[in-house]
């Protein structure tokens, strides 16, 4: 196997007393859609911005297409496209002008008219940036990331704060990038996004990669276990729920109890019996098949969006 298209080794970065990255390492192969999944403040954006050349690591190695983002300047920028966590452009810049402006900076340029059609911005080509909706602004940011037909595309929380329909549109665009054999590095705190879009996922927490693999491999950790979330009229004491039949793990989040069970029916029967005995009341019960959220809970004891 040759050199990976993105190589990150032992990255460290501090912001004053805050340790943002504490030895992040991973590699991304060409044509892969790779996800950095983690809660806010985990270090995802810092990692991506070091790879984009926007930030300097305190130590460690970051290479994209074999180039050092910090030192190779324009040659490096020709090879990447990026969507920042929040993109801003001058209010009075028109959509088509923005695309043409950025396309003109590069030697290799995509057809901006085709990009407008592809990102459903044709009707808005003469609109000012300030007149666009949040979804349209994000589609424009994605189109701008592709004006140079880049080898590697960085997407930092590309669907954060967008409504479900726009989110699905952006998923389609990322699927299209995968079909076009682009290498995509995406950061997200949405489980669904990571599971649906990514070939491989690195789960990041407190500046470290705590698990890495395909979504399927990662979920194997919770194989055969069902997540049962229950809400009760009164809180339970002494970790009673954790001792129910089949329960391997029990934690409380926001007033709900999350149980991981390897034999769901026995767990539910035991739960009902226990609640009857304690004269407690079941307010709600939901069951989920294993997801990356469960992997995160298992590894950190916290939920992704805590």
């Amino acid at each position, binding site marked *: 196997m040759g050199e990976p298209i993105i190589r990150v080794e032992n990255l460290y970065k501090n912001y004053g007393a805050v340790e943002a990255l504490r030895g992040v390492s991973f590699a991304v192969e060409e044509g892969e859609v790779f996800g950095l999944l983690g809660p806010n403040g985990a270090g995802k954006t810092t990692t991506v911005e070091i790879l984009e050349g926007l930030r300097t690591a305190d130590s460690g190695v970051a290479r994209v297409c074999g180039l050092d983002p910090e030192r190779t*300047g324009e040659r490096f920028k020709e090879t990447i496209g990026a969507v920042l966590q929040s993109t*801003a452009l001058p209010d009075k810049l028109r959509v088509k002008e923005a695309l043409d402006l950025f396309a003109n900076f*590069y030697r290799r340029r995509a057809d901006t008219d085709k990009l407008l059609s592809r990102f459903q911005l044709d009707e808005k080509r003469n609109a000012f940036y300030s007149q666009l909706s949040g979804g349209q602004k994000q589609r424009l940011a994605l189109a701008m990331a592709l004006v140079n037909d880049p080898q590697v595309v960085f997407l930092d929380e590309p669907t954060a704060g967008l409504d479900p329909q726009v989110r699905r549109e952006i998923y389609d665009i990322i699927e299209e990038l995968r079909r076009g054999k682009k290498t995509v590095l995406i950061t997200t705190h949405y489980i669904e996004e990571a599971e649906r879009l990514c070939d491989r996922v690195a789960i990041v927490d407190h500046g470290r990669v705590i698990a890495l693999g395909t979504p399927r491999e990662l979920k194997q950790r919770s194989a055969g276990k069902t997540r049962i979330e229950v809400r009760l009229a009164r809180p339970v004491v002494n970790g009673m729920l954790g001792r129910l039949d089949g329960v391997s793990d029990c934690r409380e989040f926001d007033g709900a109890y999350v149980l991981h069970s390897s034999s769901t029916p026995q767990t539910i029967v035991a739960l009902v019996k226990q609640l009857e005995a304690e004269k407690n009341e079941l307010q709600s019960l939901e069951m989920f098949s294993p997801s990356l959220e469960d992997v995160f809970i298992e590894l950190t004891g916290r939920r992704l969006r805590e």
Partner: protein
Amino acid sequence: MRNTWILTKVRLRLAMRNRAFFFFSLLMPMIFLFSFVTLVARGNNRQWIPYILGSVMTMTVMGSFWGLSVQLVTFREQGILRRFRLAPVGAGPMLASSIISNYFLVIPVIVIELLVCRFAFHVLSFGNLWALFALVTVGSATFASLGLIVASVTNTMQETQMINNLIWMGFIFLSGATVPLAKFPAWVQHVSLFIPAQYLATGLQSAATKFATRYEVFEDVAAMGLGLVVAFEVSRQLFRWEPEAKVPRRAKLWVLAALVPFLAFGTWESVKGTRLNHVNQNFQTLIDRMGPGQTPPAR
């Protein structure tokens, strides 16, 4: 060079879509021009119109200082510069394009001021047009660069406006652009020799009133030209793309470096002393040409 030109075109478009630009860059100088002429150059005092034109042109050109610093800080605060940083564009083209586009926006305003003087105030001669052109060209670039330095050493718009106001007050009141330099006591006149705006104001007033000698125009252009080169390099060194990027400690030294050309020219003039003599003589000549019972301008 290509990126500089691409950015220049976009900046020109953005300026033309900005109402504030028309108010501050076009309407305000016209208000000054009409007000000053109405107040000062009535009746037999028409010889003051070219002098007033020189003053108004000075304020138009110095406006570059305000406009560019505010624009750069706005772009940085809003994260716009960050997006540009991802593209293969350096700080040089970003800064140069703002200076060049500003120049293309200043020139039409200057032309309009000349036309207003010609057709509304019936001024037949504008003195040395080549000198005016050279001073406006170098002056707009110099003051734009000085504005870019302010933008680089301030973190927020509030800070930028505070520092701009302080410097602007010095520029307009100590340069001779509003109150004629000849009206000040000798020590204030000496202080003004160290102020960049003095070279622009004196130069434009002298060129418009036909008093400027070749050497004086050369000295004004040289002082501002040298100031431009140093100020541009300083602003390039201090340029920050990121809103949260800290101003480096060396920034204060760089800012001092930007003042060196004006300190050098000021010291030279203080020792040699001909500039202030000429300023006072020229002003006296304009007074001598006044009709009986008229008073000289003290705006």
